[in-house]
């Protein structure tokens, strides 16, 4: 009789770069079932999904536009997770940054762009940081689980936005639940004329660079990684664990806030309820797919940006519901994690 045994051993070197590719293939095979259910041809669908967006300049730039908030939320989540602080609140912190940007955009009417833009960026960073402050303080002072509090804060800020948009900030011109259009001086300049690619894209790459620098090249980064690897060991080595986690949590919130500024000042020009398509949660996917490594995170953000653009394409051309994109992203996350574990096992005959 054939007898099999499962053995655990490190994956061979050639497997490592292959793992993400295998994960992508498995994900597309699984989600092809949904495409068929939607009465579309999977090959055609994945052509529109993955290749069509890159086939012309306009939609290729759109991929970069879609990846902008994801680079930032991915960087935000990476920074917190690296220190073992489970910030699931990037979504709320992004929205806090967006509120600040919408508010400053109304106030800074007569300020020249040279001053208004730095103020927008600083304001958004601060707002995200402040929204992250309560869960972070509760965590380091009272040991209240940050996963739960950051999740709850995400829901709370939705009510705050609804309160603002149905009350004091309701657009007096249109009467829609959206804040008044921000002043021209506070709008992010376009990087490419007649496209939606804006200053936020550069801010996103600067943030990726900054977290790489901090995590890899500074004593703070060393302390953060030590805390992330093991809190008690870090404490024993003389690291102030609470202070390190607090810093990680607050900077993480600030970076997420920048994503909100970009969406308001670069895309929508006012605050709306549906400002974020779950970018904060997608940031967790991006950070995990990128292996909490800034380079990997930026590649993951670009790939998810491609998927989001592709989902729009598929929904417009083939009438497949746009939510296919959400399913593909989540499935890709779970499949990738599984492949990364499974490559360490093999089945042998004994």
């Amino acid at each position, binding site marked *: 009789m054939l007898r099999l045994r499962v053995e655990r051993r490190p994956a061979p070197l050639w497997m490592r770069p292959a793992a993400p590719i295998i994960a992508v293939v498995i994900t597309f095979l699984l989600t092809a079932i949904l495409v068929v259910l939607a009465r579309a041809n999977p090959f055609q669908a994945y052509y529109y999904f993955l290749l069509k967006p890159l086939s012309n300049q306009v939609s290729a730039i759109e991929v970069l536009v879609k990846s902008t908030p994801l680079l930032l939320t991915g960087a935000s989540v990476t920074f917190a997770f690296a220190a073992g602080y489970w910030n699931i609140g990037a979504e709320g912190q992004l929205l806090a940054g967006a509120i600040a940007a919408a508010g400053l955009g109304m106030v800074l009417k007569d300020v020249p762009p040279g001053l208004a833009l730095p103020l927008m960026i600083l304001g958004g960073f601060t707002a995200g940081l402040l929204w992250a402050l309560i869960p972070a303080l509760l965590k380091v002072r009272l040991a209240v689980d940050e996963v739960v509090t950051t999740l709850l804060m995400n829901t709370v800020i939705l009510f705050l936005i609804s309160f603002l948009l149905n009350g004091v900030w309701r657009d007096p011109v249109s009467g829609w639940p959206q804040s008044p259009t921000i002043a021209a001086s506070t709008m992010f300049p376009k990087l490419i004329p007649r496209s939606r690619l804006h200053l936020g894209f550069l801010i996103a790459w600067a943030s990726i660079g900054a977290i790489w620098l901090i995590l890899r090249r500074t004593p703070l980064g060393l302390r953060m990684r030590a805390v992330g690897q093991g809190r008690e060991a870090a404490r024993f080595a003389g690291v102030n664990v609470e202070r390190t986690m607090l810093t990680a949590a607050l900077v993480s919130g600030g970076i997420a806030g920048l994503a909100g500024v970009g969406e308001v000042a670069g895309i929508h020009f006012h605050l709306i309820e549906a400002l974020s398509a779950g970018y904060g949660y997608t940031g967790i996917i991006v950070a995990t797919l990128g292996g909490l490594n800034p380079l990997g995170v930026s590649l993951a953000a670009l790939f998810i940006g491609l998927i989001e653009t592709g989902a729009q394409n598929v929904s417009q051309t083939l009438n497949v519901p746009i939510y296919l994109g959400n399913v593909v992203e989540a499935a890709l996350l*779970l499949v990738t994690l599984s492949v990364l574990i499974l490559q360490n096992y093999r089945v042998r005959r004994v």
Partner: protein
Amino acid sequence: METFIVGLIAATLRVATPLIFGTLGELLCERSGILNLGIEGTMFLGAFVGFTVASTSGSLWLGFLAAVLSGVLTGLLMALLTVNLGLNQHVSGLGITLLMTGLSLFSFRLVFGERSIQPSIEPFPKLAPLGNLPILGPIFEQYALTYIALALVPLFWWLMYRSNFGLQMRAAGENPEAADAAGVNVFRVRTLALALGGGLMAAGGAFLSEAQLGSFIFGIISGRGWVCIALIIFANWEPARVLWGALLFGGVFALQLRLQATGLKLPYEIFLALPYLVTILALTLAGRNVSAPSALLKAYRRE
């Protein structure tokens, strides 16, 4: 005043029902050692499946059963990831939430298309076993599912503290190595806990779409799953205290609805946010006195 209070109590029980289902489901997962952040998505899936099957088959109970089954399957997927593969529980759970939310939205569009009018069903009727009781009658005018949820609490106490499965589950959550040495199949116990837990979470979602609303809207769960996770900590992982936590949250929520109805000129969003803020406050007060299962978040691997 009497009608106000009676109405408030009745509404409290109604609002607490999905939370009791969800929190008891999460309790099973956590006591066996798995934090299941898939709860938000599992409740969403339950709401979608319950509504859709009820709407297409015409049977509310068939819809409810289908919802529970979808939750069990989701729990099994979570078990595959976190019990068998030993993946990070935070990320797996959130992944499941995102996956099930996406799948539900995708399928909803496939089944119902894009309509200007929200499809709806005739929801579960309310039972009034003591309907003609003076004054207090309306309190007992509840959905059958509310009575089922309330009955589950003592059943859970028995399951956790008096049954063999409960003992094995608690052992797996506190000290899986010792449980394994004592002959408990930790993998099987955790898988079973996740499957049952998923079914209960989905039941909570189905209550919202099939009883309370009679329709499926995209904001149907809106953070209720996260509230359940918080209620567990508030309840210190005890089934009886789960009930009090759910009733407290339900009470704040119901009060908010009642105050709105009285026409008080207050921004209603503040009241909507109130239960979430109260939950954070309660967590703060519970603070360091909580005792989570020792092996929570730790994957078990047999070496």
